[in-house]
């Protein structure tokens, strides 16, 4: 409990676009996140870390407006979570945790990305040339234009992740939320995906919420880290959050800090 989440290197001269105010999520008796107070500012790159089951995905679903708080308040674009309308949701691009893609689902890469336009377009409107152009631009951002007519099921896991990121971009979002985008990818692909996210943040000035287990990979890239374990344990610049005493509180003995200040997840006892 070292921080109330308001400190950080980002200027606070404007009001946050996402604001948690003593918000709790879950069901009565089964609270996944408790008493969260956290502002997220326009253009920030925020990394969300914490052990398994610490409420990271719950935080995602809340920001998407899919899970209103049971206590406290959550405001997204100055709108209460429960009042978030479809056109607000369209401004938040989301890459869910990697699920199993039905290999035979009849959909091409371009069609997948075009789905990102559907919410923004609204009902009863057919996507036109402009939407197609936006989708093609999104594919170009993730370097997948040459695969536009390939069946989605024929791509590798890393390529599918890029396509899903392109779909989120096709929404022309203000906020991009990525839930463990590197899980199940090989090490090169992991770096590629994280670099792509960094690039999108820099180039498109997107507010990015990146949920991950890989603290080392993102520590030098994010503006702020948010450390969760049902409660908000710390939020601030990586150097302030990644302190041995804080990490120890959250991760217990599984995590050590080496002399070079690298975080390694392993059994503490083996070193003593």
């Amino acid at each position, binding site marked *: 409990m070292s921080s109330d989440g308001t400190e950080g290197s980002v200027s606070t001269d404007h009001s946050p676009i996402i604001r948690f105010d003593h918000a709790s999520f879950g069901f009565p008796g089964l609270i996944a996140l408790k008493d969260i107070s956290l502002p997220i500012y326009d253009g920030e790159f925020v990394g969300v870390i914490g052990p398994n089951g610490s409420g990271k995905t719950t935080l995602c679903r809340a920001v*998407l407006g*899919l899970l209103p708080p049971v206590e406290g308040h959550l405001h997204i674009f100055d709108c209460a979570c429960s009042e978030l309308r*479809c*056109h*607000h*949701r*369209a*401004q*938040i*691009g*989301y890459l*869910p945790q990697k*699920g199993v893609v039905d290999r*035979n*689902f*009849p*959909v*091409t890469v371009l*069609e*997948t990305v075009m*789905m*990102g336009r*559907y*919410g*923004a377009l609204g*009902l*009863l409107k*057919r*996507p036109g040339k402009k939407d197609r152009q936006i989708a093609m631009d999104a594919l170009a951002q993730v370097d997948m234009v040459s*695969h536009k007519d*390939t*069946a989605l*099921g*024929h*791509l*590798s896991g*890393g*390529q599918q992740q890029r396509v899903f990121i392109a*779909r*989120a971009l096709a*929404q022309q979002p203000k906020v991009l939320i990525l839930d463990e985008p590197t899980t199940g990818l090989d090490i090169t692909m992991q770096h590629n995906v994280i670099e792509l996210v960094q690039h999108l943040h820099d180039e498109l000035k997107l507010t990015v919420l990146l949920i991950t287990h890989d603290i080392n990979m993102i520590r030098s890239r994010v503006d702020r880290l948010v450390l969760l374990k049902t409660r908000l344990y710390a939020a601030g610049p990586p150097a302030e959050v990644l302190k041995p005493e804080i990490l120890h509180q959250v991760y217990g003995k599984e995590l050590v800090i080496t002399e070079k200040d690298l975080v390694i997840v392993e059994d503490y006892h083996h070193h003593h």
Partner: protein
Amino acid sequence: MLDLLAYDFMQRSLLASAMVGGLCSIIGVFVVLRGLAFVGAGTSHAAFAGVALGYLIGWPPLLLAIVFGLATVWLTGWVEERGRMKLDVSIGILYTTTMALGILFIGLMKSYNAEVYGYLFGSVLSVTPEELRIIGALSVLVLSLLLLFAKELYFIAFDQEMAEASGVPARQMFFLLLTLVALTVVVSLKTVGAILVFAMILIPASTAYQLTHSLRTLTLYSACFGITTSVVGVLISAIWDVPSGPAIVLLATAIFFTAVLFSPKRVKRTGVVHSH
């Protein structure tokens, strides 16, 4: 055979079967993609219970079929959304309960009623002009709604949570799809019967699914299979005097297994593209 086509009843039944075949196979595409196969099976039995009740109390059977069908799909959808119970369990219970009601209603009837059995096993050759009009009107309604909301239904079939997160009213679209499935089942009751109607929704779309990676082609193939098997099935039924429902469904099944044998997807399974 040309003599047969001169009869009014034959023209009506061919028209009815073509409409039902087309409608079932097109909605079937979304049912197969969204994984609602079992929901349709449950709905057809519920709709049959509605028909039986209609004959028992002297109300319009198709109206009660719609009421029973809608109640079942909405309850199913609600249970799935709540995640309280596994979908196959809840449908299994509804499926057998409504069938039990149907049998009970038949048992309560004072006399044997051949028309009720027509709805159970299908008797397209006895479709009346009024029934044909109802089938036509409901087909137009269902197809128009499918066309209007095709892009949303496609998205929720692919990934409903993702669709909702990106600003598509996914829950409403899911209930729309369930409603359209229920209406389709009711429309088809007279043609193929409650027990077999679901084959008409599932088989043409599954056959087409073996053959293509494009939604457009998938829908087109499915409609072609559906209409062809229905019309040819009715002709077989009339010429050789066999029941129409089984004739249609067995024909569709034969085509399905042929498609499985020659599916390009089966061939591709060993040759996935691994470009980096």
